[in-house]
């Protein structure tokens, strides 16, 4: 039972990550790979506050994690978006790797061993279900907020900016500030997800936020359907459920690990050829 609850919580947290990454990449057209580092910023901020100030309210610490991720995203966006969109890809990769190195080499973050003994705010037999409810609600709220953003006038402006940034700007819109806002919202959500993660698992380590994590979130978005509201939800469920389903086959570990990699790679390849718009997407999306 606990095992299933943990998987469900992971799905909720990764839904937030995939949905917010989709807002930035799929809707905003901002090619960043650094999404997991904002997840990390949120997780470490909330975790460190919880460890060092055990009396501090958990919700405030999660919000602080969200705010820290937003600030970090604005720093990255304001410096790299100014030149040209393509620089963001490189700058975001550098930002992610640089910040990870920093986390690994600082003492107060726990270094490469990670940050452990994050106090559990909720105790008792209902801990799992309570966290599941909180994370599920947070995921639903994120998807709802993203849906509200991308539908209606704001979404129209985002599409226009992605289609023709020059014409969009010449109609009186500040594309730069719009990108920064989208980026900050998406990264803030990732930071919030990080806070929830830290509180539930009570342990964060730098390795879980590396480029492999970027690839995993990207796969969720591509599989589910980039630029669709519910695609990332489907992607997160699939990518977290499939590996669990495989474990029920009781294969020896030596086969298990490569098996997962092979299945993910085959999935991505199959989708790129057969259904580039993803599961939820209905048509080819011109990016």
């Amino acid at each position, binding site marked *: 039972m606990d095992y299933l609850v943990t998987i469900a919580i992971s799905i909720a947290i990764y839904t937030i990550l995939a949905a917010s990454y989709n807002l930035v990449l799929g809707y905003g057209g901002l090619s960043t790979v650094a999404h997991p580092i904002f997840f990390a910023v949120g997780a470490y901020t909330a975790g460190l506050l919880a460890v060092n100030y055990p009396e501090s309210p958990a919700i405030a610490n999660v919000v602080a994690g969200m705010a820290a991720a937003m600030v970090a995203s604005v720093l990255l966006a304001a410096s790299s978006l100014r030149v040209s969109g393509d620089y963001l890809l490189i700058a975001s990769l550098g930002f992610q790797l640089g910040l990870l190195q920093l986390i690994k080499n600082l003492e107060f973050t726990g270094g490469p061993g990670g940050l452990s003994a994050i106090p559990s705010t909720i105790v008792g037999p209902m801990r799992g279900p309570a966290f599941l409810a909180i994370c599920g609600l947070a995921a639903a709220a994120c998807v709802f907020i993203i849906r509200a953003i991308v539908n209606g006038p704001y979404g129209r402006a985002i599409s226009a900016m992605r289609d023709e940034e020059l014409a969009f700007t010449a109609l009186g*819109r500040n594309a730069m500030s719009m990108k920064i806002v989208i980026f900050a919202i998406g990264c803030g959500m990732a930071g919030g997800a990080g806070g929830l993660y830290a509180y539930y698992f009570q342990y964060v380590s730098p390795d879980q936020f590396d480029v492999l994590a970027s690839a995993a979130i990207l796969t969720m978005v591509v599989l589910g359907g980039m630029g669709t509201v519910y695609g990332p939800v489907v992607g997160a469920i699939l990518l977290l459920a499939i590996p669990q389903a495989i474990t029920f086959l009781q294969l020896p570990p030596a086969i298990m690990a490569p098996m997962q990699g092979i299945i993910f790679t085959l999935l991505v390849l199959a989708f790129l050829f057969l259904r580039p718009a993803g599961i939820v997407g209905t048509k080819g999306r011109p990016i």
Partner: protein
Amino acid sequence: MTEILRVEGLQKRFGGIVVSDNVHLTIGAGEILGLIGPNGAGKTSLFNLISGVLRPDAGSIYLRGQKIDNAPLYKRARMGIARTWQNMLLFRTMTVMDNLLVGPRDYPGESIVRLTFGRAHVRSAEAAMKGRAMSILARMGLEQTAGSAVVDLPFGQQKLIGLARTLMNDGDLLLLDEPMAGVEGAAYETMQRVVRQEAEAGRAVCVVEHNVSFIRDLCSRGIFMAQGKILQDGTVEELISSAVLTELYFGV
């Protein structure tokens, strides 16, 4: 005639190529100024300098007497400089109506704060914008295309949508970059009528165009440019009959 735009001593070069060489120019309200010249004369570059896509090396631009040299592209659009593009730059994934709805200078629905806390205001503003968009489309006889994907329209109608989107800006200055290129038939007549109506409504209009008969039918005044310089400024008839220009432009 009220002066809308004044350009003084505009200078711009890209390496060895001079695209704007000491350009002086004024356009008044209600005037339609034709800008003609061979390819590479600096006509589109002049539009880019006026609208703020490019920054000049020297010289100044005044809108309604106010210096706007330091305003970036998007702010100049908010001041009322509205332009179209040679290759239209329509929002390809969107409908005709949505293309037009990105045109206005005031857009409360695109602020997250307003969207969250001022929904009633956003709704009424959206309704007003849609009404204005429909009336512009109706003037062009295109109201039935409002829900169509903009890429599904024939080329001439896409050109008109490019103009319609720009008209949503409701600005004092209209810069039209080759509005007639590739346009014929009904769309040609419509384009001419709408541009004339806009000038009659008191806007200053500047048209870059290779179609000389369009310029002759429409413009009160013409400017001939070559190699970044204004070679002649006068009535369109004077321009067309000038031997030097005929040789430069038409090669005869």
